[in-house]
C-alpha cells in the first residue's frame, strides 16, 4: 500500500508536499485557523454558517488575519481553541457585512488566483441518493478505531450544476498529527470505475463526521491535484443535533493578498436529484422505516395499485383539510392554491355517460381478451410438453 504521509506539525512544512502549480505554499500554516473559523460556524445555527462565506473579498477581510497570528505557535491539536475564540470575535464583526444567502457568494469568494479556476457549474451540487447510501454503508464497515471514512466522489459537471453520481471509499489512517491516504488504491478504483462509466470524472471527496478538521484541508489539497476545484461533502453519521446533516463545501482562499493565504471552506447548496426509477426505488426502500424489523417484501399486482391509491388518498385528504380550514376561516385563502384546486377538480373529464360506458367496456374487453389468450397460450405449451414427452 503506497501511503502519502502528511505531516501537519510545522508551519514551514509546506516545502515537503507543495506542488509547483501552487503559487502560495503557505497553506498548512493557515490551515489550523481556517478550520476553526468553520468549526464554530458548523456547530452553531445554519444562519451564521454563511457568515464566514463572504469574508474573503468583503471589507472585513483584515478581520480574520489577526486569527492566524497566534495559531502557528501552539500545537495544531490545541490550536483550535484559542483560534476559535479569535474567530468567534471576528464572526460578529463579519455578520453585518455578510449576505444571508450563500447565493450571493459567487461574486465575492472566487478571489484566489492560486486555485485553478472558479468553481465550475454554479453553486449547486446535485446528489443522487445512491451516493449517500454508499457513504453510510462504508461508514458502517469502517475499521476498528477509525473515527471516520473518506472516499472519492465521481460524477459529471455541466454549466449550471455539478452532479455527483457515484462514489467509492478509500482506506486511510488518521491520527493526531498525521494523515495517510492510499493514493494508489484511489487511482486503481477510479480506473476500474472508468471502464464501466467512462463519463464520470473525479469531482471531489467525502468524509463522514460533522466537522472539518485540519486533516481535511490536507486531503482536500491532495484531491485538488486530481480535479479542478474539488468538492468536499460531509455526512454527519454521528447524528449531532439529532439529524444527519449533509453538507457540501468548496475551498476558497482567504486572507490578505500578498501575505500567507488561508483556505476556507465555503458551503454550497445541496439538492437531491433522482432518476424516475430511482425515485420509485427510494420510495420502496423508505418503507423499511416503518416495519418492526426493518424488513419489507416486494408487493404484487393489485397491492401496488392499492398502495398508490392510498397515497393519492392521503394527498387528497391534506387538500381537503386545507379547504376546510380556509372555509372556517382558520387559514387565509391563497389565490394561487385556489387556482390549482380548480384545475385539479376540472381534471376529472366530463364525458357523456354512454360514451364513457363504451370506452370502458371496450377497454375491459381488450384486457379480458388478452388475458384469455395468455391463458390459452400457457395451456397450449403445457400440452405441447406432454405430447413431446410421450
Amino acid at each position: 500500500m503506497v501511503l502519502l504521509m502528511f505531516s501537519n506539525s510545522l508551519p514551514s512544512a509546506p516545502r515537503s508536499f507543495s506542488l509547483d502549480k501552487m503559487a502560495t505554499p503557505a497553506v498548512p500554516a493557515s490551515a489550523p485557523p481556517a478550520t476553526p473559523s468553520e468549526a464554530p460556524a458548523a456547530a452553531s445555527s445554519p444562519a451564521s454558517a454563511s457568515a464566514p462565506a463572504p469574508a474573503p473579498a468583503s471589507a472585513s477581510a483584515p478581520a480574520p488575519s489577526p486569527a492566524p497570528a497566534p495559531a502557528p505557535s501552539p500545537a495544531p491539536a490545541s490550536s483550535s481553541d484559542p483560534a476559535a475564540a479569535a474567530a468567534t470575535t471576528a464572526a460578529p464583526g463579519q455578520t453585518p457585512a455578510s449576505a444571508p444567502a450563500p447565493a450571493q457568494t459567487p461574486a465575492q469568494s472566487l478571489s484566489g488566483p492560486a486555485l485553478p479556476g472558479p468553481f465550475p457549474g454554479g453553486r449547486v451540487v446535485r446528489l443522487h441518493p445512491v451516493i449517500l447510501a454508499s457513504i453510510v454503508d462504508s461508514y458502517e464497515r469502517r475499521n476498528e478505531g477509525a473515527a471516520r471514512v473518506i472516499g472519492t466522489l465521481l460524477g459529471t459537471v455541466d454549466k449550471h450544476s455539478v452532479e455527483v453520481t457515484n462514489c467509492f471509499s478509500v482506506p486511510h489512517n488518521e491520527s493526531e498529527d498525521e494523515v495517510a491516504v492510499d493514493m494508489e488504491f484511489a487511482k486503481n478504483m477510479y480506473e476500474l470505475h472508468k471502464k464501466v462509466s467512462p463519463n464520470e470524472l473525479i469531482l471531489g471527496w467525502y468524509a463522514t463526521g460533522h466537522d472539518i478538521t485540519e486533516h481535511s484541508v490536507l486531503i482536500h489539497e491532495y484531491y485538488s491535484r486530481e480535479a479542478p476545484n474539488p468538492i468536499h461533502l460531509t455526512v454527519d453519521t454521528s447524528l449531532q443535533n439529532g439529524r444527519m446533516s449533509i453538507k457540501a463545501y468548496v475551498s476558497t482562499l482567504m486572507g490578505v493578498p500578498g501575505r500567507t493565504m488561508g483556505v476556507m471552506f465555503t458551503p454550497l447548496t445541496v439538492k437531491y436529484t433522482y432518476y424516475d426509477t430511482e425515485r420509485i426505488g427510494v420510495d420502496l426502500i423508505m418503507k423499511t422505516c416503518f416495519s418492526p424489523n426493518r424488513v419489507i417484501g416486494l408487493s404484487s399486482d393489485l397491492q401496488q395499485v392499492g398502495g398508490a391509491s392510498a397515497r393519492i388518498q392521503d394527498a387528497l385528504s391534506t387538500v381537503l383539510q386545507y379547504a376546510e380550514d380556509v372555509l372556517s376561516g382558520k387559514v387565509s385563502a391563497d389565490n394561487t392554491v385556489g387556482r390549482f384546486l380548480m384545475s385539479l377538480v376540472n381534471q376529472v373529464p366530463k364525458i357523456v355517460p354512454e360514451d364513457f360506458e363504451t370506452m370502458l367496456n371496450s377497454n375491459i374487453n381488450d384486457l379480458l381478451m388478452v388475458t384469455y389468450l395468455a391463458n390459452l397460450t400457457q395451456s397450449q405449451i403445457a400440452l405441447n410438453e406432454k405430447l413431446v414427452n410421450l
Partner: protein
Amino acid sequence: MASRKEGTGSSAASSSSTTGAAGKGKGKGGSGDSAVKQVQIDGLVVLKIIKHYQEEGQGTEVVQGVLLGLVVEDRLEITNCFPFPQHTEDDADFDEVQYQMEMMRSLRHVNIDHLHVGWYQSTYYGSFVTRALLDSQFSYQHAIEESVVLIYDPIKTAQGSLSLKAYRLTPKLMEVCKEKDFSPEALKKGNITFEHMFEEVPIVIKNSHLINVLMWELEKKSAVADKHELLSLASSNHLGKTLQLLMDRVDEMRNTSKQQQQKHQYQQRRQQENMQRQSRGEPPLPEEDLSKLFKPHQPPARMDSLLIAGQINTYCQNIKEFTAQNLGKLFMAQALQEYNN
C-alpha cells in the same frame, strides 16, 4: 472465487455491524431441496442496480453486474454489488476476469463482503430465458451453491413499482446441465418441464438503522414525487410490445411453418419464371428437386424449445399481471365517473 466456507467465515465477521441477525426470514421458497429459501437485499444494492441501468443501459442492451454478500442459514444476504462493463468496444485488451479480481481485491480493503454470491441482469420486457443466462447461472450455481440471478426489469419499474426477481436453477436442471447432455432422452428422464426450469426465490429488502435515518432525512428534504405512473391508464403501448414479443416466440416455436411458406414462395417464383420463358419461346427450366433446396427440417433441439416455452410462460405471466392491474384501474375510473354524474 474463494471457497464458500472460508468466504463465509471472513465476511460474516466483517459484516456483523450491518445486517444484524434480527428478523429471521420466513422461508416460502420453492422445492424443499433447494439451499436458499429467501433472498435478503440491502437497499444500497437496489439503488446501485437502478443507477447502473439508468446510466449505461439503453434500449435492448442488457447490463450486468456481480452481487456480493454472504449466506446465513437458509437466507442469502446480498450486501453490495458492482457493475460489469459492457464488452462491446475494444474486446482485445479487456480481461473480464482480471477486472473482477481487481475489483474484489479492492473492495476487500474497505471491508466490503467479497464473497461472490450471484449476478444481476437487466431485461427488456421480461425476455431473459436464454441459453446464455442458463449457462451463466449454471456455472455460478455449480461453483457456489447458493447463488442467484437477479432480474431487474427497468420498464416495469418505470411504470410504478420496483420489479426485481431472483431466480435459481432447479436441482433437476442442475443435474442435466452437469451431464452436459441436452438430448431429448436425458431431458425426458429428468422429467423436466418448462415450469421446473427456474425457481423464483422470494425477496425482502432490509436496511440498517443508519440507512433508515438517512431515508428520513431524504424524505424531509426531497420534493414529493410528482409522477404517479402506477395509476396511469395508458396501457396499450406496453401491452402491444409484450404481445409482439410473445408472437415472435410462438413463431419461433413453430418454425416449420416459416419454412413451408418459403417453399411456397419459391414454387410460385419458379412458375412465374417458367411462364415468362414459355412466352419467349425458351425451354422451361428444369423442375428442381425442392427437397434438395430445402433440407428436411430437423426437429428443433429439445433444450431450445424448452427455453422458448419457459420464455412464453414468463411473458404470459407478465401479461396477466399487467391486465389485472389495469382492470383494477379501469374500475376505479368508472367509480370516479359515476360519482361525477
